[in-house]
């Protein structure tokens, strides 16, 4: 429970997961991960490859054989017998690393309509949701609804995948490596769109990435994973205050943090909890002015 009595929207309690458990090919992906995410939070789950990020994401929507007592949605154990997994999946929307994998129908409009239809919405409501989602993602409804998914570019396909999840109006939106493979303009557009959506719909936003830079643009809290365990968890600036530990992991640090670490050679107490270049510049100007 949080201080005001509202249970966290998602919680992992001592979550562990081994793929192909009990076989000679067993791989322990997550060892012992615990954290809580409150409604409306923007959390970046950051870690190098093989750190267990994607396993954690799959656990949120009960896409793995999760053991009881480890994963909770709004305080309810998702692995409890009789728990409505379909309802959970209508609340936790996931955009996977490779967007192609989650596209079900061949035609853009039909694919975006898939979720709402499966959830039992009327044809009129579904159409409205599809139009709204496609327009939001910059894929004008009249132009794109009958296009073939497989004939679209990679960036457009990712947008269709996101539109398919948005159309479900899920309170939680999880994005696994949303920026991978996008050009700078595509990244910028996606970033603005996600920020706007998060504000407008008061979403709980979870971004998985191997890059703290990407995560820092969208999130104000980081959970850093390494080899299946949590190595840091806290507000973004607090986590960045100890950059040396992060630098040992195979993750991309934000540019201002990299610069600040170098500047520590000249100013040993130079702060590293800098999120933007402007902050770095201000700090540097102040230091140089003082000396």
């Amino acid at each position: 429970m949080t201080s005001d009595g509202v249970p966290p929207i998602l919680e992992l309690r001592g979550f562990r997961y081994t793929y192909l458990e009990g076989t000679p090919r067993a791989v322990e992906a997550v060892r012992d991960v615990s954290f809580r995410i409150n409604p409306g939070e923007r959390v970046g789950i950051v870690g190098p490859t093989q750190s267990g990020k994607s396993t954690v994401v799959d656990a949120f929507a009960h896409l793995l054989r999760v053991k009881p007592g480890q994963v909770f949605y709004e305080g309810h154990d998702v692995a409890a017998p009789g728990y409505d997994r379909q309802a959970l999946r209508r609340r936790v929307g996931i955009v996977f690393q490779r967007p192609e994998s989650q596209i079900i129908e061949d035609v853009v409009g039909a694919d975006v309509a898939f979720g709402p239809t499966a959830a039992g919405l009327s044809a009129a409501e579904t159409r409205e949701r599809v139009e709204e989602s496609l327009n939001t993602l910059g894929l004008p409804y009249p132009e794109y609804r009958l296009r073939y998914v497989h004939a679209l570019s990679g960036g457009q396909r990712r947008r269709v995948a996101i539109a398919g999840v948005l159309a479900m109006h899920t309170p939680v939106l999880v994005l696994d490596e949303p920026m991978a493979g996008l050009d700078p303009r595509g990244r910028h557009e996606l970033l603005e769109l996600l920020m706007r959506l998060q504000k407008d719909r008061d979403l709980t936003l979870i971004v998985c990435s191997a890059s703290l830079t990407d995560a820092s643009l969208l999130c104000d809290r980081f959970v850093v994973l390494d080899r299946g365990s949590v190595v840091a968890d806290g507000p973004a600036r607090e986590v960045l205050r100890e950059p040396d530990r992060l630098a040992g992991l195979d993750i991309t640090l934000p540019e201002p943090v990299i610069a600040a670490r170098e500047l520590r050679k000249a100013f040993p107490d130079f702060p590293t909890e800098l999120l933007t270049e402007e902050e770095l510049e201000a700090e540097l100007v102040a230091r140089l002015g003082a000396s």
Partner: protein
Amino acid sequence: MLELQRNVIFGQYIDAGSFVHRVDARIKIVATVVFIVASFLIDSFLGFAVVLPLLVLIQVVSKTSLGYVLRGSRFFLAFLVFILAFQVLFYPGDVPESGYLWRWGILSVSNEGLYTAGILGLRVIFLYYVTTMLMLATSLVDLTNGLEQIFGPLQRLRVPVNELVLVFVIAIKFVPIFIEEVERLARAHTARGVPFDEGGPITRARRIGRLLVPIFINGFARADTLTTAMNTRSYRGGRGRTKLRWMKAGVADWAVLALITAWMVAAWLV
């Protein structure tokens, strides 16, 4: 949850470092051929009973968990039972009137039908077991080298041995990749509200059908990438290619082959 990797072990290699793993790959391939020939020659329950202890011996020596092999054969065994049921119900051979246990129109259950289906079932299980064991205990590199050396002499007759072996090995190698891919796709579809983990077997099978188009598209893309990778690394078949390590069969290897051959001949003759 769709856990195909658990239920399909075809094409997997598990390095348990046992004696079976260390036997020369060529000997293992030839021994497998001996097993395959024997499986067609043996046609009595007694013959297969003689074979059984040898299989148990191989299983024990290989240090591979029997439970893992059995669980990994679930789909295969279910399919086999399905096929054998048809074999029994539509048995085409001659049956004396006293041989029928049950009859309804063209469907029947007869002693002869059960016997034939039983032998056929054992034959298929035997074949499946030895080939699965060969792949579980032989790395792909050894399998490739072994096949290339066994069929090497055919190159003089202008048979493209290296290319054929390569195609065979890639085909096997793609099975686990495909299985992983199906699992990944099924997870993504589940997240969007296709409940792969609910419903009866037919509903589930129909849902898997939906994955076919993306799987084929990914498969072609993968094949394309592989071709490009091989071209950029100047793959041009096996002509003039030398090997760093030549395989050498020792006394123990030949003894294994002799033992298996003798055992199979005995099983055939009883």
